[in-house]
Structures are given as structure tokens and as C-alpha cells.
């Protein structure tokens, strides 16, 4: 009985709320435009009216109101002394007759509270009226973000009118999900099942709220559905959290790996501490930026692919710098590793400042191509972000490339020989000096690639390289000098441990603990995880 009363009350409330919408055939067009030009409160009322019109207005009213919602979002509505104009084409907002703006038009700005209302209205209009299936599908995605706000009836009407079978099914699914607070208990139970299909903390909050619903105590079926959904969502969240931790760890590890792999080769081969490695990463990112600017001028159609097209350029440019560095400076310092450390520090100081003078200190502006923007929700609260995925994929490719060069090419064979025993290698006729130079170039080129891969993740500025130097050295030393496998393992371990500690004690503590662990480990095993077989250096 109580339930019936409540439902009746809710129905009455809905009628009152959407009362302007029910009178939609008498939509007050001038009044609506006036409210759109009013203060935040008036705009809010106008937004609600727009939503109602989208759900239950006549076709003419919807055709009239749809451009208004879009125009406000895009700030294309110009309010002037004589009402308002739609900026594009200079149409009057009410009569839709061409006219010029009277005075200086002012475009109203949506407040944070009104913005979702207008976006909802815009999506609702698009779902019912947009010509292309893709536009309607996109509108549906927007509606999915706020199932609770979707006006009742909208989805049913939209589904009935939908011509595309796939989209129709999606609309029906959403309609079922949105029925969580509907009056029909069967629809509610179906909605609970639907909500549980996409587990997330938000879904859990929505379902958990139902436990205080009168139906939970009264209706055992409803109760069972809620409990089952809660359990299912909790499992989903747990799985999602585990995956997210793994993914975060993997993405951090891939960054560490790319920053460290070039160093690992150089350090393993020559015992040279290259403190300029971070700056080579930075230069790789700047070269990527230059390629992007070049494409903008030369081939705008390819602009989206600059990250791919820059790969050879970034590699060759930084490799060339590395070779020059080796030939001019480090060549003279092989017997003096500590001096080469100071020398490379001077180089890093120089590179940072020369880049600062040439490009300035601001963050460089990068296009964000579609393949590194946004993410896909997978399960629970785990979102698969594309820029991280790009870094991970890039790290795997870099690993394969490095492994291929070191294991399968004559250069790699020579590098390994010199790494294991320089004197013996020289004795059997390997040109160790030339190998050093090539390997230094190769290691520097890998740093350049790291810069490229990091540009969609980090801000690119002259300072960026300095963030990597200590971390990457720790990876190299922990992994064991001169082994690729050690570098990979060390990067994975450090990345994962960092991500595990971070939520517990914060980012700083995570870094401190991980570094202290590494230092302690190195005191115990100075040769790292994997020691190269052969002469200890």
C-alpha cells in the first residue's frame, strides 16, 4: 500500500516537473530565448525546458530548439538588444530570419551546473533527430554517462523511431538500465541486472542506495536481485582494481625501461656514466615536435601520424648527437670513467641551456592524435588509456629492436664481445673504438625514441630530462650491467612496486622506499640482478 502511495507521489512529481514539457506544443519560443540570455538560474530553467522538449516536444519544436542547445554549448548564441542571434549565418534566434546583430552581442557562458543539462538536451535532440547513425550513437554515449537524468519516455520514443538495428538494441539496453527507479518492479529488477553488467564504483553506489528502498524489505525477489548485483559488481571492481594496478605498473615500467635501455648499453659497454642521457631524451621529444611542425607545413594530411613518422628522425638525430659526443669528448676519457661522468654532466648542462635559449622554457605544444587520446573503460574502474598503451607498445617494440640488434647483427655481436672482454676483442681484430662509437650512437638513439614515446604523456620542456636520470640509473644498476633481460626485469619490478606502494603512503614515500630498497639490494649484490658472465669490471 505504502509502495503504491509512493509511486503515485513520484508520478505526480514527474508530471509537475515536466509540466512545461507536456505543454510542449505551446513552447514559448520567445520566452525560451529570453531565458537563455538570462542569468544562471534562468539558463537552468531554459535547459530543463530544452530537455523536456527533446523528450516529448512536437517535431517542429524540436527542430526549433535543437540548434539553440548546440549554439549555447558552442557559445554561438549572441544575445543582443533585440533578443538573440545564432552567430553562424546571422539568423535571428526566434524567427530564424536573417538579421544582423543589434549592438555588441554577448554569448552566455554555461555554468558548471547548467552545462550537463544542455549537453543532455543536445544529446537527446541528436538521438532523435541526427541524420547519421554515428551522430546518434555518439549522442547515446553522452546519455549513458548520466542515466539518472534521462527523461522518462525519451529512450522509448527514440528506440521506436530508430532505423539502425544495432543502435536500437543499445538504446533499449540503456532504457532498461535507466529504469532503476521506474514504477514497474520487473523493470527495476531487469535494470539492476543491466547495471551490474558494467561494474564500477558508481554502479555500486547506485545499487547500494537501493538497499534503503522500501522494496528491498518488501520484495524478496527485488532483494535477491540487489544482493546478486552487489556481489557481482564487487567482484568486477576487485578485478578491475587488480588490472588497473598491473596496467599502471606496466606503464610506469615501460617508461623506466625506455629511459634506461640506452644507458644500459652504453654503461655496459664502456662503463661510462652518461649523465646527458636525460637530455638526449629531451632532445628526442623536441625533434618529434619539429617533425610535427614540419608536417604541419609540408603535409597537413599526415599530421596525425607525426608520432610514427618522427621515429626514424628522432632516432637518427639523437644518434648523431651521441656519435659526435663520443668522438669529440668521451673518446678521450675511457680510462677515466669518473671524469667522463663530469664531462657528460657538463654536456647535459649545455644541452638544457642551449634548448632553453633556442626554444624558450615553455611547454611545447603537441597535437594529440586519436591513437593517444582518451581511453576505454574495461571493467570496474579500470580504464585503458591510449597514451599509456602507446608507451607500452613502444617499449615492447624498442625491446624487440634492441634485442634484434644486439643478438642478430654483426654490430651486436661485436658489442657483446667488447662488453665481455674489451682487450680480447681487440686482440681478435674487432675495431673496439668504432664499436664504441656505434654503440654510443645506438644508445643515444634509443634515448631519442624514449623522448618521442614520452611526449604524449609528459610535458616537454628543457627540464624534462632531469626527471629520469636517477631512476634510469637505478634500473640499469639493479638489472645488472650489460644485460637487456636485467633491465627489463628491473624496470618491471620497480614500476610495479612503486604503483603498489603509492596508494598506501603516497607518491613521495613510494619513491623513497623503492630507492632505499634498491640501495640496500646493491650493497648486498653490487653486480645487480643479473651479472654478466665473464670478467667483472
Amino acid at each position: 500500500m505504502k509502495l503504491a502511495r509512493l509511486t503515485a507521489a513520484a508520478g505526480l512529481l514527474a508530471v509537475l516537473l515536466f509540466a512545461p514539457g507536456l505543454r510542449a506544443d505551446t513552447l514559448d519560443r520567445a520566452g525560451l530565448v529570453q531565458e537563455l540570455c538570462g542569468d544562471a538560474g534562468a539558463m537552468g530553467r531554459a535547459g530543463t525546458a530544452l530537455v523536456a522538449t527533446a523528450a516529448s516536444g512536437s517535431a517542429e519544436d524540436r527542430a526549433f530548439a535543437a540548434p539553440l542547445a548546440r549554439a549555447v554549448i558552442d557559445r554561438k548564441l549572441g544575445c543582443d538588444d533585440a533578443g538573440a542571434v545564432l552567430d553562424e549565418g546571422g539568423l535571428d534566434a526566434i524567427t530564424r530570419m536573417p538579421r544582423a546583430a543589434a549592438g555588441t552581442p554577448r554569448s552566455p557562458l554555461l555554468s558548471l551546473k547548467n552545462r550537463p543539462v544542455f549537453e543532455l538536451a543536445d544529446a537527446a535532440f541528436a538521438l532523435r533527430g541526427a541524420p547519421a547513425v554515428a551522430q546518434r550513437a555518439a549522442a547515446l554515449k553522452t546519455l549513458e554517462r548520466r542515466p539518472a537524468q534521462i527523461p522518462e519516455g525519451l529512450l522509448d520514443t527514440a528506440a521506436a523511431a530508430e532505423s539502425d538495428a544495432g543502435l536500437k538494441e543499445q538504446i533499449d539496453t540503456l532504457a532498461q538500465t535507466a529504469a532503476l527507479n521506474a514504477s514497474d518492479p520487473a523493470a527495476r529488477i531487469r535494470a539492476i541486472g543491466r547495471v551490474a553488467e558494467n561494474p564500477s564504483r558508481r554502479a555500486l553506489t547506485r545499487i547500494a542506495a537501493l538497499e534503503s528502498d522500501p522494496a528491498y524489505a518488501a520484495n524478496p525477489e527485488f532483494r535477491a536481485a540487489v544482493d546478486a548485483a552487489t556481489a557481482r559488481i564487487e567482484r568486477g571492481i576487485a578485478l578491475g582494481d587488480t588490472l588497473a594496478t598491473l596496467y599502471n605498473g606496466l606503464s610506469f615500467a615501460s617508461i623506466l625501461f625506455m629511459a634506461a635501455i640506452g644507458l644500459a648499453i652504453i654503461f655496459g659497454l664502456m662503463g661510462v656514466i652518461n649523465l646527458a642521457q636525460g637530455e638526449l631524451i629531451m632532445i628526442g621529444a623536441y625533434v618529434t615536435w619539429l617533425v610535427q611542425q614540419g608536417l604541419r607545413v609540408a603535409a597537413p594530411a599526415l599530421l596525425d601520424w607525426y608520432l610514427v613518422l618522427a621515429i626514424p628522425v628522432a632516432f637518427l638525430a639523437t644518434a648523431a648527437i651521441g656519435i659526435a659526443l663520443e668522438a669529440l669528448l668521451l673518446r678521450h676519457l675511457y680510462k677515466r670513467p669518473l671524469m667522463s661522468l663530469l664531462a657528460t654532466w657538463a654536456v647535459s648542462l649545455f644541452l638544457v641551456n642551449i634548448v632553453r635559449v633556442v626554444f624558450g622554457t615553455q611547454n611545447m605544444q603537441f597535437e594529440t592524435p586519436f591513437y593517444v587520446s582518451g581511453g576505454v573503460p574495461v571493467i570496474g574502474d579500470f580504464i585503458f588509456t591510449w597514451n599509456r598503451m602507446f608507451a607500452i607498445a613502444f617499449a615492447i617494440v624498442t625491446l624487440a629492436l634492441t634485442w634484434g640488434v644486439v643478438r642478430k647483427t654483426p654490430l651486436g655481436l661485436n658489442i657483446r664481445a667488447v662488453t665481455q672482454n674489451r682487450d680480447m676483442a681487440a686482440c681478435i681484430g674487432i675495431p673496439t673504438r668504432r664499436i664504441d662509437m656505434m654503440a654510443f650512437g645506438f644508445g643515444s638513439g634509443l634515448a631519442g625514441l624514449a623522448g618521442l614515446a614520452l611526449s604524449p604523456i609528459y610535458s616537454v620542456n628543457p627540464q624534462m630530462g632531469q626527471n629520469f636520470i636517477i631512476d634510469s640509473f637505478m634500473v640499469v644498476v639493479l638489472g645488472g650491467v650489460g644485460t637487456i633481460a636485467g633491465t627489463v626485469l628491473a624496470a618491471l619490478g620497480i614500476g610495479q612496486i612503486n604503483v603498489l606502494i603509492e596508494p598506501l603512503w603516497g607518491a613521495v614515500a613510494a619513491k623513497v622506499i623503492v630507492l632505499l630498497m634498491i640501495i640496500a639490494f646493491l650493497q648486498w649484490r653490487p653486480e645487480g640482478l643479473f651479472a654478466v658472465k665473464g670478467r667483472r669490471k
Partner: protein
Amino acid sequence: MMRLGRNGPIVLLTGLILLVAVAMPALSGTSLEVSRYLANAIGQLAAFAVLAISLDLIWGYLGILSLGHGLFFAIGGYVFAMYLLKHSFVVTGTVPDFLQFMGWKDFPFYWAGFDFFPYAFTVAVLVTLLVSGIFGYVSFRSRVGGVYFAIITQALVYVAMLLMFRNDTGFGGNNGMTGFSVLFGWQMGTSGMITALAAGSLAVLALVLMLCRWLVGSRFGALMLATRDDEIRLQTLGYETLRLKLIVWCLSAVIAMVAGMLYVPQVGIINPRVLSPELSLEIAVWVAIGGRGHLVGAVIGALLVNAVKFWLSSAAPDIWPFILSGLIVLVVLVFPNGLMDLAKFRLTRPMGPKRMAEEIGEARP
């Protein structure tokens, strides 16, 4: 004759330092008075020179490069700052900033007693010995050396910086500590105080210089050089090098700590930036430019680089990094013994055993 030639430069330098130390207070009030800015700069330079000596002792004479000497410098600096704050609090009632913004009513318990300088000094020495002792013992025992030691010390100082950046450690966090008003009961910032601090720093510099000179000239010093040049041979001959390295390492850490104590009252602030890996690297740069393995070289390197830095960071801020990097490359490529090579050029034959002229203490581990 030989001995005089050996000790000549260091005696002269010490004399010069003491002369300046005496002249500064003596000239105050006369027309030749040293300006406060210059006096303060001289005092800071003296602190840096002490720091450079500490690094030269282990790098130049023992062949161990530490890229983490900022850690010990910071221990001295922080402890002295704690003394100053607590002392100022007791004398004038100034409540330090970090207590206020952390919302703390009182000093954390480990600040107890820091208004009493002998206690603070003892704590600084003990903490320095503890940190350097444990780290040195473990490192030297597992024969971590060369570039490995350099990177690990760098990571260590970096860890310390991250830790001190945290506000909840009770040492002022990122802001560090500032606002010192009283030292040993006297008002800070007056001309007299600035001159006294500078003269005191110079005196300490002279003292440290003589002490180190005596040390490296002794039998112990000869063992240090031998360890640097061929540790394995020395061990084969029956010498225990672990203890020797540990002693010098700890001594060097304590000297760096003293430098930190001199530095803080003159610059008026201590914060985790002194723990940044760059500063520790820069110490090595001073020593390299001045000339490793020469106490005089370390002092001159520190004075020269920092004086030019003070000057250029206001006169021509843009070119300073270029000059510094150019200077390092020049030294590294052309003058492996720094400015000492310059002195050598037109004069006598290279000094010391043959190996020293080649490269100091860089035999790979």
C-alpha cells in the same frame, strides 16, 4: 728545502686566509671597511672551500668519488638551523613558520635540547658518523667502488632530498628553515655579526686545511695514496684497507658537516635544495677544476667557481651555465689536474708519482 717546497703553497694560502680573517674585523670602521655583502660572500666562499676540501680528501687522496656529499653538508646545516631556531625561540619567542602552517602547537620531541649548542654539535657529529659509518662500512665491505659508489651516493642524497621535502618530517619540509634572529645570544644580520661569521669561517677553513695537510703528509696519508693507486697490492702486503677507507670517509663526512654549519647562518636559510644531486655534483666540479689531489687546488677551485657564479648570476645570468660547462669540458680534456696544471705549465715537472699525473684513483673496481 724539499719539505719547504712541498708545504710552501699551503702555508702561504693558509697565511693569506688568516690574514683576511684578521684584516676584516680590524678594518671595520675605517675607510677600507669591507662591505657587508662582500664580507658575507667571503664567508660563504670559505664554507664552500671547506666542503671542497672534504670531497678532495676522499676523491683526490683515496680515489672514491662521492656524489652525495651534500647529505653531510645538509646534516650540519639542518642541525645548526635547528639550533638557531630553537635558540631564537627561547630568546625572542619567535615561533618557526613550519610549526604554524603544519598546525603544530609545539616542537616535535626530537627538537628537545637543541637550544644548547654543545648538545646540537654532538648530535650533528654523531648523526654524521652514524650515517657515513653504516653506509661506508656496508659499501666498502661489499667492495662497491668507482662509478657504482658515485651513482649510489647520488641516489642516497636524492632519497634524502625527497624525504626532507616532506613537511611531516618536522624539519620544515620544502620551505626548509629560515628566519634566524639570534646566534649565541647576539643579534644576527648586523655588520659585526657578518664580519665575525666570515672571519670565523676563514679561521675554520685555515684549521681544516692545516689538519688535512698534516693528515695527508703523515704515514697514514701515504697509505691513503697507496690505497688509491693499487688497493689490491696493498691488501696483499697485509694492510687492512677497509678500516682506512672507513676512517677517511667518516672524517670527510664530518668536515662536510662542519661546512654546512658554517654555511647556514651566513645564507640565512636551509632547505632540501642543498640535498639536490646537482649541488653534490657541483662540489666534484669545484674540486676537478681546482685540481684533485691538491688541497690548495680544491680550495681555489671552490673559491673561483663560486665567486664567478655569485658575480655572473646577477651580471650575466644567461651565460653562466655555458661558461661552467665549457670550463668543465676544458678541464676534463686539457687539464686533467685542473688549475694545478696551469701552475705546472711553465714551471717544474709534474708532481708526485707517475700515476697521479695520469688519472687519480680511477682504476676500475
